[in-house]
């Protein structure tokens, strides 16, 4: 019916919108800008564990939201709003073999499941890279602060194990999501980060926001280090200025990410942000982790 709108403005006015469909940008643009926080690790130390907390306030959690808490160089771990009746805890590890089709991954580069929690689905994923995926259907609630703990540990034989745990304060015990072995990988925890994205193109006009708090990392001897610095970045749609409805940084002592909904208070990309240290390391009973 209508395919284009032409606006003739006064001089020196610039307009921002999704301008072209190269690399499927109409799709990505309608999803809205994805935004990230990359936490600063102290240099020259090997970390095994990363701990983070997420709180999403009521109304900031439209369908299509993915509040990713514990990202690492080879995957991610967070919570999603999949429909009006279903929410999930998602933990995924990419294969070292780069493809969007899981069927193409050679046997020796496939992600192996080591263990998984009760009622957790595990399988393969594709489209944005391929690898091992696990999720637990779990109706997490807005307004509740959830804890995420995961580890990255080389096995000394050229593989690395990735394990994820989730804590619901109303349950009070850590639950295992899954543990995967990634072949041809020899690494400790690298690139700790969080992100916020919308994965439903028809919901990109809705705003979502999450707070990310109390980040800590621990080495293999369980020595905790608090992470209080983060760099705010965005995806291709944000970097091109096709969408400007993104924000992130520090607010009321916590980090936050916000996107979608066409709000006007944009945060500069690549800006550094700090939160005050709490000095209270997470209390983990390692022996009781499933």
């Amino acid at each position, binding site marked *: *019916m*209508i395919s284009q709108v032409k*606006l*003739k403005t006064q001089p*020196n006015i610039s307009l921002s919108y999704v301008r072209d469909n190269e690399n499927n940008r109409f799709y990505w643009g309608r999803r809205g800008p994805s935004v990230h926080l990359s936490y600063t690790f102290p240099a020259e130390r090997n970390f095994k564990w990363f701990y983070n907390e997420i709180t999403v306030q009521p109304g900031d959690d439209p369908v299509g939201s993915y509040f990713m808490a514990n990202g690492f160089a080879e995957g991610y771990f967070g919570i999603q709003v999949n429909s009006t009746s279903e929410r999930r805890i998602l933990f995924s590890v990419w294969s070292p073999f780069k493809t969007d089709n899981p069927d193409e991954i050679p046997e020796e580069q496939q992600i192996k499941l080591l263990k998984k929690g009760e009622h957790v689905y595990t399988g393969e994923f594709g489209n944005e890279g391929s690898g091992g995926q696990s999720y637990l259907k779990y109706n997490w609630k807005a307004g509740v602060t959830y804890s995420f703990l995961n580890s990255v540990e080389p096995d000394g034989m050229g593989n690395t194990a990735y394990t994820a745990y989730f804590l619901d304060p109303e349950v009070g015990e850590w639950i295992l999501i899954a543990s995967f072995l990634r072949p041809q990988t020899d690494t400790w925890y690298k690139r700790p980060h969080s992100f916020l994205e919308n994965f439903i193109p*028809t919901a990109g006009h809705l705003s979502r926001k999450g707070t990310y708090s109390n980040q800590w990392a621990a080495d293999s001897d369980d020595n905790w280090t608090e992470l209080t610095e983060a760099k705010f970045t965005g995806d291709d749609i944000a970097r091109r200025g096709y969408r400007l409805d993104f924000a992130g940084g520090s607010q009321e002592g916590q980090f936050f990410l916000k996107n979608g909904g066409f709000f006007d208070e944009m945060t500069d990309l690549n800006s550094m942000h700090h939160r005050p240290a709490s000095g209270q390391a997470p209390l983990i009973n390692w022996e009781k982790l499933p």
Partner: protein
Amino acid sequence: MLSIYNLYFLIAMAFWQNLELQQNEFIIPIAGNTYQTPSEKPIKITASGWESWSETNTVWSTYVHSSASSQVDLEIYIPSQTANATISVDLNGSKKLQLQAGQSGWVNLGDFQLHHGYNQILFQGVEKAELISA
């Protein structure tokens, strides 16, 4: 010999034409910038725009961010109108537009006001020939 009035007229014309040349022109694709509400019965939005509408309570919102407030001249591109219809177009002020079956090309709706920050251009069907005869 050129009279002083003719000179004023030529200067005014040159000034107006210069203003016209200085206007910025932006073409916003519907496909990457538009959302439908309510979204319960989604109508596919493609590079050619959205597919034929039938319900008058459906609104399509196209979003654009402006670096400053500005008066704008607004046109819409109709690839091919399938039925006589009336639509409303709202950009901080509403206008109605009658479209004829078989019509295509750019249609000018005149001046609107663009605010600094995000603006919402609303399109809504008012009536359509099939709806009237149904």
